């Protein structure tokens, strides 16, 4: 697989490590009433879809940036690559 890094251009997938679903960006509010349940679901449950999947990739052997890679889990086709920072900010996170 080739990951089209937004800053560095096409890079081989072996330069990256995969963290998992991009939903890990959406950390629950630790002060909420239901924080215990919300953290359980956040940590341990997965959608695990067959098809399009947004996931966190870390460019460990490169510029060490975190990317959100949208990839098809049936074909391995990569359809979108974004900086995780931009995705997180667009979802209202400060960094």
């Amino acid at each position, binding site marked *: *697989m080739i990951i089209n890094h937004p800053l560095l251009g096409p890079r081989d997938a072996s330069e990256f490590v*995969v963290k998992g*679903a991009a939903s890990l960006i959406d950390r629950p509010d630790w002060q909420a009433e239901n924080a215990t349940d919300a953290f359980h679901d956040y940590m341990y*449950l997965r959608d695990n879809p067959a098809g399009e999947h947004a996931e966190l990739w870390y460019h460990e052997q490169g510029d060490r940036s975190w990317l959100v890679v949208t990839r098809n889990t049936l074909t391995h086709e990569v359809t979108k690559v974004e900086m995780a920072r931009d995705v997180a900010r667009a979802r209202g996170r400060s960094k």
Partner: protein
Amino acid sequence: MTNYSGLKVLWQGLTGNKGWKPVWREPEPKAEYDVIIVGGGGHGLATAYYLAKEFGVTNVAVIEKGWIGSGNIGRNTTIVRSNYLLKGNEPFYEQSMKLWEGLEQDFNYNAMISQRGILNLYHSDAQRDAFARRGNAMHLAGAGAELLDQDKVRKMAPFLDYDNARFPIKGALLQKRGGTVRHDAVAWGYARGADMRGVDIIQNCEVTGFQMDGGACVGVQTSKGNIRAKKVAVCVAGSSGRVMEKAGMRLPIESHVLQAFVSEGLKPTIPGVITFGAGHFYVSQSDKGGLVFGGDLDGYNTYAQRGNLPVVEDVCEGGMAIMPMIGRSRLLRMWGGVMDMSMDGSPYIDKTDIDGLYFNGGWCYGGFKATPASGFCYAHLLATDRPHENATEFRLDRFKRGAMIDEKGVGAQPNLH
């Protein structure tokens, strides 16, 4: 159906092998069963077999979307062992090992069970101590283990690279009772045994949804129509996420691909199973002579039964690091299978929150060895609605309770287990 015996093989051999009959029927589904098992892999078929044989529940169907043996049961590297550490796991895997030891007599089928030993190499003092601890845990469960120093390992496997500058081989943990089993014979043996006792094995029939009534599961929707059941037992390994999604459930599971490799056929070289302790590589030799080996997962979520080249390179490097002679043989074939990786590396055998719906999965890349005990314990749960005493920890809610069974201690990161 009559039993197999040496005499029968001889007689058939002398009469042109014309008397062999198919060993299971190809029935049309009935309108209703007591238990429907979704997935005709090793675990589903073993569950049906033990339900019928040990628990007297025979009004059972196994529903398989392809043909039986087309999933991971026919794709794995066939290693069986009971060398676990944690108490949630070890008695269960030892139960499985005991069932393997009696299996061929029990189901009257040649599964080519070969207990030729498994050597887990260690490369440092710290690793030796960890293996000593694991060996003690194995003794406590009655599994048996031996800690070998380098000399003893040399006698068993003289071809390893003992003095490798980076990963010298200092010794190994040996489980003599470990070994390999002919994987698809396991599926066929259980299928035959279940069919003989009245279980319907329905192939080429995909479960596409669940029939619900008042919040309870009362049957399945399939490509051959609706079938009702008092209990629906899902057992679909790598497809767990896709199937349970149809019941609205999210699981503590990610699907990943594991690749396996076979070399050209060689004369007997490797005595048993050998695993590399410093990287991830394991190897055994099949009866046909091919070296069967594998290593790490590819690491990304996937439902495609194929992997990518970086892992091929990584696995072969692992092989070269412990046994450079492997570099002289050529790779014949490679393939991948979709693994149901759980959040702590351990499986689930449990009732779900939906009445009538049961779940078995999360076997990661170690579920082949578990096949007999998984079938037995799942059958126990289905027949009695109580977990078997060796499977009490395999609950879906264990993360909520802080009761993970994390052999490797790497946390909720499925691609690292």
